């Protein structure tokens, strides 16, 4: 529990929550301050104008009716405003009260001119000895009389107090609420991150089989978990492929190496025979060449896959390449009585690597002849449509079962029935690598009968887009 608490307090989310609470609190205090300031200012300015109007009216009375008139007016107002909150007081030159409802002149205000605020007995006390806050203004009349007119501003005072109380309560409440919310949000976040961390550690410890649990909430955490899971899926797939490849490399290299070793060992203990030795050396060199060829095919494929060669792309004509491939394979096709021909458009220009495209098409044609029908038909069709250039190599042989389609591009993958034909199962991997370099798609279609392999290469505009990102 304390570990979780410590983790919660340390977490970035919690710190972020604290910062937001602080900011929110500051905004709230500022808002309260503004409301307080504008409300009190309004109330006080209204009070001030009332006081000034009363002063002016009383001064007029004094001017017209003299001291006695003023005393009468004050007494009238005091009785009239008994229930109201008006404060009136007339004093002589030495501040001795003459008339008014202020029982005692406020201490320290004697002689002050202008505005003053003070506490005095309330005008309409609800309890004995109740005090009230007043705002008032002294005016000295001709003849040395001092006139004080004021209003109780206890309402403003009460409003201020209530404001403080509300602010204190709101701040307290918000802090409690925010603390609860941020801790619970942080806990939730820490919990989700913890489950991801636990899974990653489990993967590091025991292998790629584990997956991050989903909560089914479809929130960003679930999306993150889904993405991480599919990444793991892909890594697991690739690892499996790598393992399969290295197993196959081991198998395909060990077999001829074992054969060579055995042959040499047998020869070393046997009798020397020049003719026999010569044959043995020749066979061994041929076997070694096979091994080296597998090796260089593998490095070539991985080089195509890893190095970005698109910078070396040139304008090439697919039809010209297809024709050159067909010409190269002409003799092979003839030997198998296969009719090999190019069909489709007259010229199809794209940007690409001629050597690699040639190699890819050559591999596909080689496959079509090798795995097609004896005395069959192999066609290389190059066409151009709106979005891409299409090279389709089709044969009328037995084809590839639909279930095997996805496997044939894996390194060393060979169909069961073609195990005995020459080849190393790397051709289509190379085609796939070349295709992906050219951002092309490969599809296998049932040619009924036979197989049709289509390479769909995006047109120049697309590849230019690709280049501009370099």
């Amino acid at each position, binding site marked *: 529990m304390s570990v979780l608490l410590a983790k919660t307090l340390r977490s970035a989310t919690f710190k972020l929550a604290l910062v937001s609470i602080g900011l929110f609190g500051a905004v709230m205090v500022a808002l309260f301050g503004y409301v307080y300031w504008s409300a009190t200012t309004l109330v006080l300015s209204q009070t001030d104008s009332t006081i000034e109007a009363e002063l002016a009216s009383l001064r007029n009375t004094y001017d017209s009716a003299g001291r006695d008139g003023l005393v009468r007016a004050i007494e009238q107002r005091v009785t009239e405003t008994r229930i109201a909150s008006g404060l009136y007081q007339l004093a002589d030159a030495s501040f001795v009260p003459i008339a008014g409802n202020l029982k005692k002149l406020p201490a320290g205000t004697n002689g002050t001119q202008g505005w003053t605020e003070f506490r005095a007995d309330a005008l309409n006390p609800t309890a004995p000895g109740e005090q009230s806050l007043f705002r008032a203004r002294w005016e000295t009349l001709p003849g040395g009389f001092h006139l004080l007119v004021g209003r109780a501003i206890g309402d403003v005072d009460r409003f201020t107090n209530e404001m403080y109380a509300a602010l204190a309560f709101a701040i307290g409440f918000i802090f409690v609420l925010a603390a609860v919310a941020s801790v619970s949000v942080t806990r939730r976040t820490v919990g989700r991150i913890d489950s991801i961390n636990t899974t990653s550690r489990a993967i590091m410890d025991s292998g790629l089989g584990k997956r991050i649990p989903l909560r089914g909430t479809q929130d960003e955490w679930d999306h993150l978990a889904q993405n991480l899971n599919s990444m793991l899926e892909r890594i697991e797939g690739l690892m499996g492929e790598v393992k399969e490849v290295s197993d196959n490399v081991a198998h395909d290299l060990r077999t001829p190496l074992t054969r060579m070793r055995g042959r040499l060992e047998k020869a070393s203990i046997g009798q020397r025979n020049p003719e026999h030795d010569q044959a043995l050396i020749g066979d061994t060199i041929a076997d070694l060449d096979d091994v080296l060829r597998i090796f*260089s095919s593998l490095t*070539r494929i991985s*080089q195509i896959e890893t190095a970005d*060669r698109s910078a070396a792309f040139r304008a090439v004509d697919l039809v010209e390449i297809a024709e050159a491939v067909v010409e*190269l394979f002409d*003799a092979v096709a*003839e030997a198998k009585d296969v009719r090999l021909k190019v069909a489709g458009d007259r010229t199809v220009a794209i940007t690409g690597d001629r*050597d690699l495209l040639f190699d890819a098409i050559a591999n596909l044609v080689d496959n079509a002849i090798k795995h097609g029908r004896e005395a069959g038909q192999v066609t290389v069709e190059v066409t151009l449509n709106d979005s891409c250039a299409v090279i389709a190599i089709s044969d009328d042989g037995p084809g590839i079962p639909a279930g095997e389609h996805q496997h044939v591009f894996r390194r060393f993958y060979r169909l069961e029935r073609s195990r005995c034909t020459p080849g190393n199962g790397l051709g289509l991997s190379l085609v796939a690598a070349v295709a992906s370099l050219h951002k092309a798609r490969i599809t296998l279609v049932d040619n009924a009968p036979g197989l049709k392999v289509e390479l769909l290469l995006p047109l120049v505009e697309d590849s230019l887009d690709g280049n501009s990102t370099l």
Partner: protein
Amino acid sequence: MTGAHRRILVIEDDAETAEQIVDFLTTRGYLADLAANGNDGLLLGRSAVYAVMTIDRMLPGMDGIKIIRRLREEGIVTPALIISALGEVDDRVRGLRAGGDDYLIKPFAFSELLARVEALARRSATVVKETVLRVDDLELDLISRTASRGGREIKLLPREFQVLEYLVRNEGHVVPRTMLLEQVWDLHFDPSTNIIDVYVGRVRRKVDGEQTYPLIHTVRGVGFCVRAPR
């Protein structure tokens, strides 16, 4: 051939490989000088008495490509054969751009090394503009692009004629498959199938079929050779 045209500079840091190359070239009548590192290679290369030099890509002290570039800058045009264990795809282009004349990837067959060295050595000798090539009773008319043997015309496709022409031009020398692919098809990779053999096989049937002796010979594991019987 003059002495210089039998003299080869071998720049190779692996002692055993270097010894094998030198031995092999020596048995074929060449005079081979060995430089075991980049600086020695540069020093020897400057003397410019060589018909051909073979240069390893990765050398202690200096990259093989750098040596070629330095020599070219100094005006030395000795044909250079780059030998490299690096990948074929990009390095080939880089090596040739730096002034290399040909490229060979490790591991290689010695016969292929020899074929390439000989091709480069011949290139530095003068080339006579011929219009007719002859080997024994085989005749190639380079103007009309026709071939005949013993006076009887051989029907060849244009590409087949090119193959035969390249083999005949290198009469008596082994032409590796890869060189044929480069020179006739302009392909710089090994298609790892037997298409070339089948292709040359068809040319051979047309040239040597129904003849008392063959002119086109297959050299196992390497390539082909056109040779008149002795």
